[in-house]
């Protein structure tokens, strides 16, 4: 008898809570996935398709649906780290098959060789190539994302990827080369020896 009561009580509780959860599930139903937008913002937007998806947004969609996070070659380790952070998963090394050196590059058309076939224009995901049929084409370097997609369709192999040259604008400080040192405290004249204090204890209000 007591077993029956126990079963009934537990069963009743289960039913009640089940109904509650069922109601909550309807009430708090989640629509849409803001994650895709956030992932898309992290991707480098080269639209290169090296991940196997036609652009960055589709890959973001795929990641949200459980695709591996380590397929973005242009983004490299940094992007993977950010995605891992957002997704709350572990950082994975860049997928071998997608690995490449990701120094920033831009495409360059060797203009003497260009036959004006417009194939690269059709391939460019960001409309960074101008030209018309039978006219020589050229690349707007500022708009080029360095995605590589125009290289393959070119029938005469006149497009090459050149690394972006370093200028004083995009130069980064190099810790090893630059070594300005502060002057050595042992090596100064006695005149100023009363000035060695290194804080602000001096009188300010005269």
């Amino acid at each position, binding site marked *: 008898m007591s077993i029956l*009561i*126990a079963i009934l*009580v537990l069963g009743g509780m289960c039913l009640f809570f089940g109904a509650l*959860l069922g109601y909550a599930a309807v009430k*708090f139903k*989640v629509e849409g996935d803001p*994650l895709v937008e*956030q992932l898309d913002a992290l991707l480098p937007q080269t639209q290169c398709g090296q991940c196997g998806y036609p652009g960055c947004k589709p890959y973001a969609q795929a990641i949200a649906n459980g695709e591996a996070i380590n397929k973005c070659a242009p983004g490299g380790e940094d992007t993977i780290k950010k995605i891992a952070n957002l997704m709350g998963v572990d950082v994975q090394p860049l997928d071998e098959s997608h690995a490449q050196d990701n120094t920033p590059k831009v495409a360059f058309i060797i203009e003497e060789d260009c036959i004006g076939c417009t194939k690269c224009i059709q391939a460019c995901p960001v409309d960074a190539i101008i030209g018309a049929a039978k006219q020589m084409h050229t690349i707007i370097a500022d708009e080029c994302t360095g995605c590589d997609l125009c290289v393959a369709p070119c029938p005469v192999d006149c497009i090459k990827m050149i690394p972006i040259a370093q200028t004083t604008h995009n130069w980064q400080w190099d810790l090893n080369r630059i070594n300005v040192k502060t002057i050595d405290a042992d090596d100064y004249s006695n005149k100023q020896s009363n000035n060695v204090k290194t804080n602000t204890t001096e009188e300010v209000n005269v």
Partner: protein
Amino acid sequence: MVDYLLLLVGTVLVNNFVLVKFLGLCPFMGVSSRTETAIGMSFATTFVMTIASLLSYLVNNYILAPLGLDYLMTMAFILVIAVVVQFTEMVVHKTSANLYRTLGIFLPLITTNCAVLGVALLNIYQQHNFFESIIYGFGAALGFSLVLIMFSAMREKLASADVPMPFKGPAIALITAGLMSLAFMGFTGLIKLQ
């Protein structure tokens, strides 16, 4: 009233669930690598613990005890906790998709967080009344949140500090936790009852 306040302070500091009673160490180590996540986890756990201690009191006192089914206590409490966690998960998913993702597996794992069941069972053993149960649950959660957030802040600093090689990662985290525990021992005797 003073009793309630004493109970609250005592649960938060003196009998801290994590550092003194060593309950709920799993999320304490698991979700403390980033402060943001830790704060989210704190809120979720606070919610779950308070509601769970309330519900478990009700279930025990109005269903199990009258029917003499005390031996079903653990089972019933786990059921209650699981429901509350499920409910919380839905709410979190709805309100903050990001938090939902960063909490990841630890959100459903609140179910198996021994601190939650601990609160429910201790409430019964210490024969707390309804309000005491709620305050005890809330205080335990507050104590848990306090140390979790403090610990995560420390771990964030540790992440970029030059920790000696053999101590990198979980090793230094555990040492830090140990030191925090020592520090919390200092609260013993904070409250003196006449």
